[in-house]
């Protein structure tokens, strides 16, 4: 399935960042040709005992691109990253870095740098010692080591911390040291394994931006693994959604968000989750409608084309952000019996039911609208035809792409 999906989703997102760094970027000094992907993974499988974790994963990361691999916990993201780093050995498939087949090479011969989820700072070394460790092992000349450490330290604001031990640092500082340790190496590729998951929410948002800023400055090829869809959406040049050991969809994040190819991708990305209702396609006065679960919504002929067949069973997908109050006589698609209104300040979400037996449905309200909507009331909601998603109930594949 994943193969077909990847070929179908043609757009290759080799969107090299335009942002010009003020200083010559270290990564560009060693960049090889633009054409071949900096990192490519082909048909990689991996099992632990009888459990098959990766079932044939393909990835291609262009030079200088930020790739995010996203998927639910336990789907094998860390395993894939460890395969690229050489900490695990692939059962089958090939891994190429900078044009070199590294599938069977030990980690030290791969020229990758990794930021671990736990940071994995060497406890007996100072911050400076941690930064120098990899360079000293590689017998880098002293002057070069000092230069790179100074550069990374100033980039990350680590100068005042250079003499400290890891245990004397806060969580955010440790995270920065872990990134610094990767940066001084100037590797072929940066690997990040959920580097923000141990930070509190405010810091996480801050460091997220900082990571993207660093990437744009260094133009460093990056493979970043996370289960957090906000990180995935905001950081990625290309998003790779991993599920059940296969890549289910890849593409620029907005494209994946707006045109999910499977029910899994549709519900995994987006918060609150996309509402899924069982329904059927009906035809009336030359127009197609999706009907079911209390919804009756006009469909866009151009978008769904031939897949609109009267009487066809479908899964109807509507994102809460696309479902709003029907205004000024716009045709409503359903009547929502409101149970709770969650006001977030800038916007609000009304949770309720379309039908007594149906699933809980969420609609988005403006802050002003939210004031007039009371729990227990019924509101008429609408969705733009272009925002409707239809899926085949059997295969889970999206219709009309």
């Amino acid at each position, binding site marked *: 399935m994943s193969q077909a999906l990847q070929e179908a989703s043609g757009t290759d997102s080799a969107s090299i960042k335009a942002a010009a760094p003020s200083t010559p970027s270290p990564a560009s000094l060693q960049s090889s040709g633009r054409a071949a992907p900096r990192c490519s993974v082909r048909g990689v499988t991996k099992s632990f005992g009888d459990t098959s974790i990766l079932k044939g994963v393909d990835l291609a990361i262009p030079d200088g691109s930020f790739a995010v691999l996203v998927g639910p916990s336990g789907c094998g993201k860390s395993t894939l990253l460890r395969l690229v*780093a050489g*900490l695990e050995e692939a059962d089958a498939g090939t891994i190429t870095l900078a044009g070199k087949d590294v599938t069977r090479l030990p*980690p030290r011969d791969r020229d990758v740098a990794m930021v671990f989820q736990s940071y*994995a*700072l*060497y406890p*007996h070394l100072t911050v400076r010692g941690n930064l120098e460790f990899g360079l000293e*092992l590689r017998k880098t000349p002293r002057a070069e080591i000092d230069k790179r450490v100074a550069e990374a330290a100033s980039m990350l604001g680590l100068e005042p911390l250079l003499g400290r031990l890891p245990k004397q640092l806060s969580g955010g500082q440790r995270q920065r040291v872990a990134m610094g340790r990767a940066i001084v*190496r100037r590797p072929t590729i940066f690997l990040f394994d959920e580097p923000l998951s141990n930070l509190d929410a405010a810091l996480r948002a801050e460091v997220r931006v900082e990571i993207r800023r660093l990437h744009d400055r260094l133009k460093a090829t990056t493979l970043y693994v996370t289960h957090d869809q906000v990180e995935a959406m905001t950081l990625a040049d290309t998003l790779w959604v991993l599920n059940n050991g296969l890549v289910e969809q890849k593409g620029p994040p907005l494209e994946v968000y707006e045109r999910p190819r499977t029910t899994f991708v549709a519900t995994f990305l987006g918060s609150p989750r996309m509402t899924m209702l069982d329904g059927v396609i009906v035809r009336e006065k030359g127009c197609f409608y999706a009907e079911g679960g209390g919804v009756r919504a006009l469909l866009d002929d151009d978008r769904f084309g031939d897949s609109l067949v009267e009487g066809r069973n479908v899964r109807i997908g509507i994102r809460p952000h696309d479902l709003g109050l029907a205004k000024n006589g716009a045709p409503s698609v359903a009547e929502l019996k409101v149970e709770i209104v969650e006001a977030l300040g800038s916007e609000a979400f009304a949770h309720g039911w379309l039908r007594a037996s149906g699933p809980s449905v969420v609609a988005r309200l403006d802050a002003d609208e939210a004031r007039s909507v009371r729990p227990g009331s019924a509101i008429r909601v609408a969705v733009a035809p272009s925002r409707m998603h239809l899926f085949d109930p059997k295969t889970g594949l999206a219709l009309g792409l």
Partner: protein
Amino acid sequence: MSSTEAGPTSRASPLERFIVNALLIVAVVYALYPVLWVISLAFSSGSTPSLRAFPLPHDVTLDNFRVVTGWGDTAKSFLFARQLMNSLVVSLATASMAVFIATPTAYALARYEFVGKRSGMRTLLLTQMFPGVASAVPLYLILDTLHLLDTRSGLVLVYAATAVPFAIFQLRGAFLAIPVDLEEAAMVDGATRTQAFLKVALPAARPAIAVTALFAFMSAWNEFILAATLIGRESAFTLPVVLQSYVGEYNTSWGAFAAGAILVSVPVMALFYVAQKQLISGLTSGGVKG
């Protein structure tokens, strides 16, 4: 240690603090009272202890120490120096052997899966169930066959054989507590498997290794029964055996015994003092999240 960690009593009320301190003082007195007696005896003249509630030396003198060390008697002091060296050499050798053998073994047991690992560990554990004395007779016969009776090497072999299994278990626990991430990070950074062990795991386990060495040193330093059994030559005695010789069948020189006890304790106390930083240190903390 660090200023952010508040002590357990810092938030307590004055009354609570008073009670805690009182209890601690009682505990310290309880533990130190016999030691005070020994000190008092060692510095007193005369050989019979006089029983008093408060152990203060009477007629303060260093005579007992002179007796023990053979002050002014060249042959005797030479012998004592030799016996002190015996103790030091045997204990240091035991500690080094224990650490050198146990560290790689413990690391392998903590990090690798291999055939016979479980049964091997169970066997090691089994050997810990029997006190060394239980095998005193066979050990005597074995050392006799190897012509190692009355030698320091023989004693070291025997001590190391008992110290190694314990050290292995202690160090294996220490290595298990070090996250594998650290060594993996080192390998991604360019280290070989061996370098990851030597440059990351080993330094991270240093406090545990220090404790293990100290334990092995002390068990050898204090051991009496096997030493008394396997060593018959006076010049090969270790200090515990020397000490015992002051407790005679007919008369006991308590003052000399006490002075000897102090001389035996001083190196151990010094070691503890030197190693205390390693002993308390939580060196691994902070490298990984937490």
